[in-house]
């Protein structure tokens, strides 16, 4: 390689390096800031409900309202059904999404008591797969601090929580594996999954 080519290459790479920050659309950066603020506000409200006064039923109702407002329940439900979203009939899909809403609420509100005294700090935010990834540290009395990441994406112009990644394990990915495994074990029959979810809902009422 001649000296000139090297210099040209160097100049070119410097130009590219200089241009990259300019090329980054500013809305993306603004998006990260607003997504982080959204998560912080959601987290503060969740913590206030969990640690605040009120009966178990009152707290569950408040949490349900928060989840409906800030979590993309339908999007997560569709993700968890994986390729079977396209294979399900519209009616199956509607029933499934309704049942999934119950699954999500039960898994959040079912262990309310364990989260007494919970606190969190926002550590950093970065763009990632499927939206902004906000990294937080969750503290609970008598528990080691846990690193929990939240995936935030825009749904109809509103920021929504799409996934929770606790110590490297993604909630929606794990749930998707569960459903995919179950459907595969039942001859790829979506009705079997819906039946099992219905049975689960009957056995664990309260949400």
């Amino acid at each position, binding site marked *: 390689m001649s000296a000139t080519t090297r210099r040209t290459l160097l100049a070119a790479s410097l130009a590219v390096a200089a241009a990259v920050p300019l090329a980054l659309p500013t809305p993306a950066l603004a998006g990260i800031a607003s997504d982080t603020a959204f998560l912080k506000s959601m987290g503060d409200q969740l913590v206030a409900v969990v640690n605040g006064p009120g009966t178990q039923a009152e707290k569950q109702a408040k949490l349900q309202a928060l989840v409906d407002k800030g979590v993309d329940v339908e999007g997560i439900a569709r993700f968890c059904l994986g390729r079977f979203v396209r294979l399900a009939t519209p009616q199956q899909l509607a029933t499934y999404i309704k049942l999934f809403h119950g699954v999500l609420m039960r898994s959040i509100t079912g*262990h309310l008591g364990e989260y007494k005294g919970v606190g969190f700090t926002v550590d950093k935010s970065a763009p990632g797969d499927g939206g902004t990834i906000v990294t937080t540290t969750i503290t609970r009395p008598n528990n080691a601090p846990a690193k929990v990441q939240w995936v935030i994406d825009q749904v109809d112009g509103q920021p929504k929580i799409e996934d929770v990644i606790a110590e490297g*394990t993604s909630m929606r990915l*794990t749930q998707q594996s569960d459903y995919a495994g179950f459907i595969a074990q039942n001859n790829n029959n979506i009705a079997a999954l819906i039946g099992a979810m219905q049975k689960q809902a009957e056995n664990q009422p309260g949400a």
Partner: protein
Amino acid sequence: MPASRRLLATAALLLPALAGCATVPQNPEARAYYHQINDPLEPTNRVFYVVNDALDTVLLKPLALAYHYGTPEFFQHGVHNVLSNLDTPVVLANDMLEGNPRRAGDTLMRGLINTTVGLVGIFDVASGWGYPKHSADFGITLAVWGVPAGPYLYLPVFGPSSPRGVLGIGGNYALDPFSWFGRGYVVQDFGFTRSGLTAVDTRAGYLSDLDKIKAQALDPYATLRSLYRQHRQAEIDAAMHDETWTVPDWYPQPAK
């Protein structure tokens, strides 16, 4: 620990004998899923899952419950800390093999501090002094070196694993100085006690988590497979992108 070696040998002999392979689906999407889960031995793995689950229900879980509710919490913490302190040589060796000198430094300091000030490891003083605990084992080391995990394996007794995981178990055993000593009764009893306590301590640590998974998952086998792989990948990522500072907490920190 000759017992665990015998167990591994038995498992290695049993596996091909029981190897029922899943049939590759014809449907392109189903085939993509089949390759994505990378579990060609699924029928056999599910058998071992059921066997392990039964063993757990009648043996390990009751032991762990008795241990959890029958002994004081400070005792359980002490046992856990002593066991994890005994792993120091293996963790240190793997930190170095992974090319993580900062993590190796943490491990060395943890071992020195906890063995002395922490009274043979009963108290984890080092964590409070800025030397936090981290995971390192030969399976992670192989992953850092670029060895692929291979298909999913559900091992008898050991549980979720992979061919790389099996090599990892062997590598850890070879790297453990406690496995180099003689074969006397004292050494053997120490080995058995340590393995037994490790099993109970580990199981006690997962009591509520495993109960939740079994209660909520529709296919606990597939859920555990996913959780195991994700957790393993997170440990490998942490080992590959080590962000530990050279200086401990109590020393003025460099600007990030």
